[in-house]
């Protein structure tokens, strides 16, 4: 703890050095591009890859073959796979770019040539998918083969896709208290933006910068006359496990009182050396007897636990 400030200073120094170096090297890295590469046209590709070609006709990407603006008229295949002249001569897989077999960053570079400057990717830097090298083609089958669609739309199909990697998360949805994803009423993208978001865990936002949860739970949005601080400061996940729980209301504890008492602990915090500030909400306002069933669920009385419009103790 004592070294926190030193750590911060050192990290910032390193950051500055890295940035200066990066800018310098970047300027020097403007490599020359290939000139007039030998393209053959999509019709040539069709001769051998007819199944893919036919499926591609139903894909939204087919527009690349006909759209003058993009500069790839009749060359849609090569817009992603690169010039195919050599490949048509050797018929070797080595002589053509296959985004499914190259590195994620190289595959993404192909996609982002057209798609970078779209609002979808504005949170890309914050996206754990980008950091963990999950490439675009990991989720979007570009040729839309085998009945799969380029952009999955139905909740069941979206959930299946996400669950194929996020196995732990899907397991949590099997617990009795869960959002209705296994039932097909919701999908992962209702709450998460797979392309990145300013919020933790890539969660969606509502009305610009409110938490995405209030998009469906509008009665929890406020603003309230008397706010419950953790709802604002740390979000719904302070008390709820949104993927699924064995506890009622997807709470993080088996009974409500423990959720409350862990913060409202009656124990003032003693600052330690190097620590800043105190912690919020540690002292309860009264001396309830928790041995009485009357007081064992705090929200019986403090029912407006997400924030109250009329009562500072959240009683109504």
């Amino acid at each position, binding site marked *: 703890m004592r070294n926190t400030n030193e750590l*911060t200073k050192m990290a910032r120094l390193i950051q500055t050095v890295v940035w200066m*170096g990066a800018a310098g090297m*970047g300027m020097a890295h403007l490599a020359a591009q290939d000139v007039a590469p030998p393209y053959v046209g999509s019709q040539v590709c069709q001769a051998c890859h007819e199944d893919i070609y036919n499926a591609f006709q139903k894909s939204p990407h087919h527009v690349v073959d006909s759209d003058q603006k993009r500069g790839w008229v009749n060359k849609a295949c090569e817009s992603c796979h690169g010039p195919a002249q050599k490949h048509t001569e050797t018929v070797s897989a080595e002589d053509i770019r296959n985004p499914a077999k190259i590195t994620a960053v190289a595959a993404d570079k192909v996609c982002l040539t057209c798609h970078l400057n779209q609002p979808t990717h504005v949170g890309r830097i914050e996206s754990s998918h980008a950091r963990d090298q999950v490439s675009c083609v990991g989720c979007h089958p570009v040729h839309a083969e085998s009945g799969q669609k380029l952009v999955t739309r139905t909740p069941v199909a979206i959930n299946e896709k996400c669950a194929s990697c996020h196995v732990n998360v899907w397991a949590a949805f099997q*617990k009795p208290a869960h959002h209705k994803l296994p039932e097909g009423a919701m999908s992962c993208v209702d709450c998460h933006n797979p392309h990145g978001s300013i919020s933790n865990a890539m969660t969606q936002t509502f009305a610009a910068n409110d938490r995405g949860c209030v998009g469906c739970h509008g009665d929890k949005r406020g603003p309230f006359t008397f706010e419950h601080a953790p709802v604002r400061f740390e979000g719904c996940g302070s008390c709820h496990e949104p993927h699924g729980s064995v506890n009622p209301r997807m709470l993080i504890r088996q009974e409500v009182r423990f959720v409350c008492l*862990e913060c409202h*602990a009656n124990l003032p915090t003693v600052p330690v050396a190097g620590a800043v500030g105190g912690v919020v909400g540690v002292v309860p306002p009264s001396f309830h007897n928790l041995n009485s069933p009357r007081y064992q669920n705090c929200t*019986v*009385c403090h*029912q407006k636990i997400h924030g109250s419009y009329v009562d500072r103790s959240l009683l109504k």
Partner: protein
Amino acid sequence: MKPLVVLFGMAIFTGVMTAQNPPAQAPAPTAAAPADTTPAPAAPAAEEKSAPASPVPSTELSVSGSVEAGYRWQTGVGGSEATYRSFVNLGSGPKLLGADFTFTDPKSRWFDRATVRAYSWGDEPYGTLHADASKSRVYDLRGDYRDITYYNNLPSYADPLLSRGIVLDEQSFDLRRKLTNISLDILPGNWFIPYLAFERDSGAGTGVTAFVTNGNEYPVPTTLYDATALYRGGVRFELRHFHVTLEEGGTTYKNDQTLYDTQKNAGNVSTPVLGQTLSLSNMMAAYGIRGSSAYTKGLFTANPVSWLDLYGQFLYSQPNADVHYQDSATGSLYLQSQVLFYTSQQTLINAAAKLPHTTGSFGAEVRPLKRVRILESWLTDRMHGASSQMSNQVLNTTPTTQIAALLASSLVANYSQQEIQLLFDVNKKLTLRGGYRYVWGDANSVVPGGLQMVSQGELRRNVGLGGLVFRPWHKLTLSGDAEVASSSGVYFRTSLYNYQKVRAKGRYQVVNSLNLAVDFTMLNNQNPSPGINFDAKANQESISLFWAPGAGKHWELQGSYGHSYLRSNIGYLAPQDLSPQASLYTDNSHTATALLTMNLPGVKWAPHSPVKVTAGGSFVLSSGSRPTSYYQPEAKASVPLVKNVTWVSEWRYYGYGEAFYLYEGFRTHLVTTGLRFTR
């Protein structure tokens, strides 16, 4: 009615867009493209194959899809129906199980392509409807509607009267939440794209809540209604080297909850206070909340040079609320602060609140070398809320007691984070990542009262980041991710403080027909500050497989197994005697899912359509602080009857049990049968 309204609205939009489209533009490029490209000389083989099948492309509207309808029987719920309804809530009756249609118009008269999907209608807990229509480079219209039952009545959740033999969740509700979402993009695919959208979220229903007075609280019926409408519109400029989105939007909100009771109500306290039993004879309370907000959103991305990508966002919103509340109650009531009994009370409260909220973020990806990428991002989020309230309470005492108050409260939260990461491609198979995040913020909350209560907190956190992606060959991918954090200040006792987080994932295609995935996460969090001593550990491990020999021609199997363990330990002082206590929570869960699908040879009347039989289900076994078991086996069959008609049938069982709350267990069988018509 709502689905009809949505469809009607979409039809109007579609009509408007068609009317605006000049006749000269009618042949859409996408529709024309196949016809243009087919005769190209470079593909003679393909021409020979495709020509006989479709010598003249159809110009008629084509419809494809299916509709599935049937009837479900529920055998009755053994055990707690309230818990069953809280977790499952499927009932008997005729059902529209699903419908999915795609309309394609080669002439692009009104649209190129439109789809309509509807699932689970007919008094079902989760009904969904989706419709969309698009015309290339002219419009893209999407609409979603969901009607979701929001029922929660768990006997053990909030039942202070259980010891008296009364099973009543005093915080229960039976709502329907209806969600509508319509968006229209105009000129999609162009560099200038205006768009409009409308969203509405509403909830209405009944429930039970407590009317809280001094000395007693009374469970009373309540009606709940809230609705939020969001209107937004903007423009997107999508150019080769940059993109800008500018959006303005606003919301309206209303909340009209009422509480009422006309019968004598003894409340939760039966013990007399100073010899007098408290009770409620009659009460009503009404909330009238009206809110609105306006917001601004600005987004941009740019790649000014080949080695640099930039990203930024600016978001500002200012929600506010106007509050009117009144209640009246009669009975044997008590004012603790003045040791005063009285027979009736009236309360009137007016309040207002606002919460301006600004968020900004900026990021850059720099590629100084072929193998090196640097990701830098910065984020700030600021909320500064203020509210005031004027209340007046009149108690029927002799003489009349009047309690008036003028209160003001505030809430401020400033949060910022800066992060830098460096990714290095060691070779084509291995990428390493390392970085650092610094998080800082401050927050304070002022809540007025007899003692002005001010809570202040500061947040300071250093986080080291690391990760790798290893792809030795394209059928195997391993990724790992680690965060190690050290904090010197957090907002809450249970916040992340000194933590270590590790995630690892792997995907392996053993053979073409067999895929395996493994997933591991671990989180350790300690806050050793005196008076807190928080210690939490969580880990999850899962494995899943998908096995479909011969592309699933005869059978396929998918299954998963997961284990999760959570242990949390933090101390507190019991409020009644300030004795030290520990809140110790553990959850040790095993979860498994499996689904075996078999395609049996086609029946003689439909030789090309196999009979499909599926069996499997899931279970959860949890031990720890709330030992629970939950079984959901299922079996399905689909048998083709004649061309385009299939008989579908399903059996499901739900069995739920709790070791501590035996009266919350339930079990039931559901049998559904119906027909699927395919076009």
